[in-house]
């Protein structure tokens, strides 16, 4: 597959702060590419640079064959973006917002009505088209923005935290629309999120932290690189239990957070039958699971994504 986006040694420095630190990556045509990282990782800064909204301090960006620095207009024609913050005109109706977008992107006059109807159908807002956006709920506004981003048939659709601030049900809906789009239109999608479960829908994920990409692969591969299973356990005396585990089973990787001990082992079956059974400190809790993206983030940074994320709702 062709690369639709190529980013090389991209840097962005604000006065005293490096927001994006020399990153390289490619996005392939037709894939869903996800940026996962905690607040302040540099996700939006990267997206804004790719979308020509922010000048890079250094580095090069190529989109759809166009140079992000020189051919801004061609780049702009090739992309659609749903910014992290709301960019609808709330005084106008849904239809008026979409019509303006058609004009900005020179959608052929004869096709406008049809396209507007089409994108409204994708996001289930046909019945709301004559209403002013200020009367919409947060989820409806987000859906309208997604519809708007699709109007001019962009080659790449950027979605910067498309579900931030929405309730879980609405979030699930938005993802349904996004997946539906990918199936129907085959559009390349570039999304950012700091919700782990949402990142899973990507074909490939770049995990970002402090302006750097620390890992990049499919969600499966990322989790497989950790290998084995994760055992979470709590005991009546965690300190004592950890010492005992380290002495008796040096092959297990042991970490602890709050009152839970995490063990990473090659095979949980063997480990449980041979070791846990014989643990001297009494167990209060036991859970066995496959690694998640959070474990991947944890293994690279020593922190949980979840613990760095303030509750946005």
């Amino acid at each position, binding site marked *: 597959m062709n690369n639709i986006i190529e980013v090389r040694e991209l840097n962005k420095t604000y006065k005293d702060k490096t927001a994006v630190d020399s990153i390289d990556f490619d996005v392939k045509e037709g894939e869903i590419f996800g940026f996962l990282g905690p607040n302040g990782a540099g996700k939006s800064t990267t997206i804004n640079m790719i*979308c*020509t*909204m922010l*000048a890079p301090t250094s580095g090069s960006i190529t989109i759809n064959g166009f140079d992000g620095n020189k051919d*801004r*207009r*061609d780049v*702009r*024609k090739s*992309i659609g*973006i749903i*910014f992290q*913050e*709301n*960019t*609808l*005109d*709330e*005084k*106008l109706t849904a239809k*008026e917002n979409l019509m*303006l*977008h058609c*004009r*900005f*992107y*020179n959608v052929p006059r004869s096709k406008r009505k049809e396209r507007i109807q089409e994108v409204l159908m994708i996001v289930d807002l046909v019945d709301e088209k004559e209403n002013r956006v200020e009367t919409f709920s947060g989820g409806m506004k987000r859906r309208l923005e997604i519809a*708007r981003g699709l109007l001019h048939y962009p080659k790449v659709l950027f979605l910067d935290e498309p579900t931030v601030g929405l309730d879980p049900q609405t979030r699930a809906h938005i993802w349904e629309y996004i997946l539906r789009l990918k199936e129907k239109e085959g559009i390349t999608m570039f999304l950012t999120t700091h919700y782990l479960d949402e990142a899973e829908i990507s074909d490939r994920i770049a995990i970002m932290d402090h302006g750097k990409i620390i890992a990049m692969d499919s969600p499966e591969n990322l989790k497989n690189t950790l290998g084995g299973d994760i055992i979470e356990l709590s005991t009546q005396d965690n300190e004592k239990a950890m010492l005992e585990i380290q002495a008796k089973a040096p092959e297990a990787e042991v970490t602890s957070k709050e009152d839970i001990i995490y063990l990473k082992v090659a095979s949980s079956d063997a480990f449980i039958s041979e070791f846990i059974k014989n643990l001297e400190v009494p167990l209060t809790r036991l859970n066995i699971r496959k690694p998640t993206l959070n474990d991947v983030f944890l293994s690279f940074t020593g922190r949980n994504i979840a613990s760095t994320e303030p509750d946005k709702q």
Partner: protein
Amino acid sequence: MEGIFAIWIRDMTRFFRDRARLIGSFSMPILFLLIFGGGMGGTMESLIGSSMPDAGEDFQYLQFVFPGIVSMTLLMTSIFSSLSIIEDKNFGYMKEILVSPISRVSIAVGKVLSASTIATFQGIMLFLLIPFLGINYSLTSLLLVIPFMFLLACALSSFGLLIASFLRSTQGFQLIVQILVMPMIFLSGALFPINNMPGWMDVVVKLNPVTYGVDVMKKIMIDVESLSPMIRDAMGLNLQLFGTTLTVAMEIAFIFTFTVILILFATLSFRRANA
């Protein structure tokens, strides 16, 4: 072209939808009309009447000040409307515009045109008050003055856009109004004659482009020829620059040039701020 039209039609839709703004924008000119028509008008008339016993009979001060109040409305509305571009920045819609392929020049021109249209519309709305004020202008002069109002509004909107491209928030807004807009009105002859000003003030008056706008408005709307020279003089209708009395044609040519230069600067400045 389509891009310019898009920017324009959006502002038009928003303007006519915003009743509060529509009504609010009339409060200021109506207040001034009340002051000059009622209170100050009488004082002015008796002042002039007593100095010119033979000419002061049918002299109406309101007749002179009305074109000035229309100009004032043009100035305020033009500048405030083009400053709305800062509001767009704060509410995020500017991003939707800037990330689209329309050229920065189209954005700037569209903004200037929409602000000018709104300002001209407000000015024309004031015409509706003419019958109630007991003054009269010929229909032809009113029709003739409209294109000029639009030209003047274009110059002033460009000026507003130029200011806007240096402002980050609407906070600097009040300041701009106080240090720029108000003096531009008071030192333009819009509200009272600008004769016999102290030297330095006279320089400011002559440098103020609004002065020439107001002068043209008055000369088109008021039948200057039929006025006695004394009234003409008392009302400051003999605007001179370097000893020559300015003709309407000269002033229009000047305003036109000024408009073109301002649009150019505003566009360049907007483009520089939003590459």
